[in-house]
């Protein structure tokens, strides 16, 4: 006899195995073969241990103090070292950790910050229009004011963008509050949610906020 009796159970085993494998492949494809910009959790080491937690959180420096281009440009610029020195020529003036900053300010060598949030080249995200129209930094960057080292918290994938573009009302808030990352409509969660819904709809209507889902909105 070539095949012993136990082989009769083989087909079943194979069937289950194949099912699992297939599922695995599908999952793999879904994750890997899609543009690999679903990178939540990325946290590179920065040349200077700058803490947003201290500056934005505890000291309450407004985002726009350093990222001053964010309302004018598609790009939320990084401050030149000169901006840092505005304070740090008094505060911690000879802290070794700030050496790079001082050098940069002195002889105009750029500080090699590592970029955290990146979208592919063929995506044209524009900060100014989002910020001025009441989409808060927190919507995409999370509670940066609570991070010591900046970390990517949202996936930044296309579907992530789409979620908000399909329902702007869920994230829109008074433009005055965009840089107030912790801001809520109310301390009471339930009420806040309700107000967000009501006012969100109102803003979207009053400001003629478009729910852009066609290619041209982001790809050129």
């Amino acid at each position, binding site marked *: 006899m070539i095949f012993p009796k136990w082989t*009769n159970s083989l087909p079943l085993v194979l069937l289950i195995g194949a099912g699992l494998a297939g599922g695995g492949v599908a999952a793999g494809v*879904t994750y890997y*073969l899609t543009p690999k910009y679903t990178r939540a959790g990325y946290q590179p080491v920065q040349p200077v241990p700058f803490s947003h937690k201290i500056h934005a959180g505890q000291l309450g420096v407004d985002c726009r103090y350093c990222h001053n281009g964010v309302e004018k440009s598609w790009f939320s610029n990084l401050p030149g070292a000169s901006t840092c020195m505005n304070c740090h020529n008094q505060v911690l003036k000879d802290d070794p950790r700030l050496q790079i900053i001082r050098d940069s300010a002195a002889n105009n060598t750029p500080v090699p910050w590592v970029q955290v949030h990146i979208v592919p080249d063929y995506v044209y995200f524009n900060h100014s229009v989002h910020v001025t129209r009441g989409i808060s930094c927190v919507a995409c960057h999370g509670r940066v004011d609570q991070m010591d080292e900046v970390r990517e918290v949202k996936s930044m994938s296309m579907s992530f963008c789409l979620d908000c573009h399909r329902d702007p009302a869920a994230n829109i808030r008074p433009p005055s509050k965009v840089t107030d990352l912790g801001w809520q409509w109310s301390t009471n969660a339930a009420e806040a949610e309700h107000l967000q819904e009501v006012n969100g709809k109102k803003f979207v209507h009053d400001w003629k906020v478009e729910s852009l889902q066609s290619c041209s909105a982001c790809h050129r």
Partner: protein
Amino acid sequence: MADSVTNLEELKRLAPPAELGRAPVVEGNQGLGWLTDKLSAFAEAKTPLWWWIVFLPAAFAATVIFPVCLFYQVFTGVGVWGNNHPVMWGLDIVNFIWWVGVAHAGTLISALLFLTKQHWRTTIGRMAEAMTVFSVMMAGLYPAIHVGRAWFDWFMFPVPNSNGLWPQFKSPLMWDVFAVNTYLVVSSLFWFMGMIPDFAVLRDRSTTRIRKTIFTFLAMGWTGSARQWHNYEKAYVVLCGLCTLLVFTVSSIVGLDFCTAQIAGWHATIFPLYFVIGAVFCGFGMMLVLLIPLRKLCNLENIITKSHIATVAKLALVSGLIIDYIYMMEFFIAWYSGDPYERWVFGHRLFGHTYMVMGWILIGINVCVTQLLWFKKIRSNLWALFVIGLLINIGMWSERFVIVVGSLYQDFLPANWGKYMPTIWDIGLYVGTLGAFFMLYLLFVKFLPVIAISEVKGVMPEADPHHPLGGATKGAGHE
């Protein structure tokens, strides 16, 4: 007890007089045992020389020319081909349609003729199905690799992804994706299921352990019990039904690629039918090309009898005539519609100076040569049929060329007009697929049952319990 009769004289005596029945499916039948030996002989015999002579070049084309052309294209760009602007599709799509066409006769023969209880099909069905499976493989390849960024083909499958994007199902190309995949899956499992009982035969006959292991595995424990046959027959009928639908669906969908487009020369409601018949016609041509040598080389002359070949020829004639009618209609409608663009395109198919050669090859073969099949002399002359089979394939290839290129190179605005000339890489890829096809086919011929053994046995008089040869006692009818 009436012992079953096995000697030749007795057979002759008991066989129904010719005028009562059709010509026997198998000539010189000497009983089931003899039949079994004969049918499984080739798969068991030592590999003959001619097989190597054909196999090696085919294998070379398949394993060297094919990958080279493929990778060069994928890593360099579609630009290595002759495709241009306005002729965005060239040999890539021409060959795609052509291969799909070749596939069709296989399914038609094995499925449709089964439903219509054509016993003679049992002898050539298996070969036809194999032809189908392999040529669909070749066909399916082209849409996958003719795109500019083949590594993104998966965009065409509804895979959930972080882009939140889906395929666009209004596109006939999407329908193609479905159609071709379905055709591949269905035709191959139809082919495989048909072979299960024959695997059992080879299993039981196998002498070496390795053969026994392989065929035991392939036969999947087929015992030929009445219960198994019971479900098997049912499944087979269902599959035949579905395959018959496929014959008419797949090419129709390929036709939709063109008739849903706006280009003059494509934009015609006749296309689905046109493509189906064209495919079948082309397929019968290929059948002739494959059967005529193989029946000789595999020593199956009295299984695949001349009358079977002749019948294939008749079918080719019929489909050919329908094609000719469609040509007439196309030209007539083009003229009758009064649409200047239609008129221009069709006028230029025959008088267009640039591609009129292809146009006249098409007419010369598909219209004129086909008519030869009216004559019994031709139909019974294997050499003639073989040549005609070859010609039909060429004719149908040129038809696809005329349709694809001939409609694109001169479209609506004269400023866009251009020309198309395939490059060495276009041709190389085609040669590669041809090689792959024949390589696979030869492997099939060598190692698998080329004839549906149990099916053939099933239609022998010995298989009929109410026939004397089936062991029925005199005058025994149904009790």
